[in-house]
């Protein structure tokens, strides 16, 4: 068994390093002006590399929902990078990502969509939650990558935790890998923010929504618990109320505070999932 077959390497070490290197390379290659916005694409690119390592590259055309998820993510990353290279304004970029995401959700989930009112309701809640999350992260995009990055990391940890409770280990691994890749971006942006959160960064958030869709429609995970993670997207409002000085120390401390605040709803979501699954055996067999 090689090092790349190790669970911790696949799920955390590799995507963290890939995110770190990817963000750095994109910033360097695109130059100081364009690179500042484009660098966040390193998160989604690192996720795709981790997907290939964990699950393998799916066939094209993809025969399964997880395969459609991968190729939807590729399309989103390409769209995001193109929008950032073209200098698309953040709100329009988010709108573009929203349209891509809605189409991708339909493609991933179409085999089960005729499943009646509960399925349609779940799909509607998912789309509404996605648009809410995208609008929240878009409002901070130009200022810096740290705020949306922290929120994405917290939300990805929540999705991973809920997936583990719901016995979908591959979705858990992929969500944790997305969190680790985002960690690579955040290492570049703490204590000082060097990057913005462009359209490709929004595409990374869209990938998390697609993972949530896979959990919702194709597993027995208690996904209703993930509604509890939505307040993480309002964590910046709580952070802004803290008496932090407007200095580099204050800004660095603010990012740490934001992380703590955002992780609370994420932990709550996993806790609710555990409670909803009460009575089943602990994982590990």
């Amino acid at each position, binding site marked *: 068994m090689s090092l790349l077959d190790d669970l911790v390497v696949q799920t955390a070490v590799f995507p963290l390093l890939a995110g770190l290197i990817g963000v750095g390379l994109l910033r360097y290659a695109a130059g100081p002006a364009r690179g500042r916005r484009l660098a966040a694409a390193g998160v989604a690119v690192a996720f795709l590399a981790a997907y290939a390592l964990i*699950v393998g590259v799916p066939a094209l055309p993809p*025969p*399964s929902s997880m395969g459609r998820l991968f190729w939807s993510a590729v399309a989103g990353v390409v769209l995001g990078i193109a929008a950032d290279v073209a200098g698309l304004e953040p709100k329009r970029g988010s709108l573009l990502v929203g349209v891509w995401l809605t189409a991708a959700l339909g493609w991933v989930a179409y085999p*089960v969509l005729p499943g009646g009112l509960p399925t349609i309701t779940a799909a509607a809640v998912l789309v509404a939650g996605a648009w809410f999350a995208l609008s929240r992260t878009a409002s901070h995009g130009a200022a810096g990558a740290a705020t949306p990055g922290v929120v994405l990391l917290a939300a990805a940890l929540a999705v991973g935790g809920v997936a583990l409770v719901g*016995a*979908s280990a591959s979705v858990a691994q992929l969500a944790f890998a997305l969190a680790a890749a985002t960690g690579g971006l955040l290492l570049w942006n703490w204590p000082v923010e060097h990057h913005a959160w462009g359209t490709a960064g929004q595409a990374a958030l869209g990938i998390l929504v697609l993972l949530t869709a896979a959990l919702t429609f194709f*597993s027995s995970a208690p996904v209703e618990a993930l509604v509890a993670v939505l307040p993480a997207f309002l964590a910046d409002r709580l952070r802004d109320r803290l008496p932090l000085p407007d200095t580099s120390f204050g800004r660095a401390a603010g990012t740490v505070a934001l992380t703590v605040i955002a992780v609370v709803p994420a932990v709550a979501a996993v806790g609710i999932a555990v409670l909803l699954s009460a009575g*089943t055996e602990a*994982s590990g067999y």
Partner: protein
Amino acid sequence: MKTVLFAAALLASVSSIAQAAPVAYKLDPAHTSVAFIINHLGFANMIGRFNTASGAVSFDKDAVQNSTLTVAIDAASVDTAHAKRDDHLRSPDFFNVKEFPQITFKSTKIEKTGDRTGKLHGDLTMLGTTKPVVLDVTFNKEGVSPASKLETVGFSARGTVKRTDFGMKYGVPNIGDEIQLLIEAEAVKS
């Protein structure tokens, strides 16, 4: 005399043609087992089964190559005697049963290799992917079952498939790629 002999020969040949026609049978779910063996981390092999399978056999004892078999397995009926593991096997990591509720097999060719043995060629469809597989099949017995009083045929089949051929890549190589199939089936005349 010659006419009588000719008529008798003609009657015999017509009878043998009539006897060579395939006979339709339905798999008896109570006496059909579809099991699999897969390696777990190199320590031991794990045995599991699918509890629900149905199918039809068209069996020509005198011209086995004309026989056909179709089987449909309920993927959600996977059973490894461990509830949490079975939930995991039903998830998108493995059999993805919400998206692909059935695993199907449709025979394409039978090669006779011995008096009661043969190679059963067919298309196995799993996770939306169809691949050709070959099973070693043994025809065990044909007759009226003393238990059910029904005309019954019995078969055994063995084979190996690679799950990655069907896109089931999760966990390889820690959880084996090769899956040994063990099938024991009785089919009752329709």
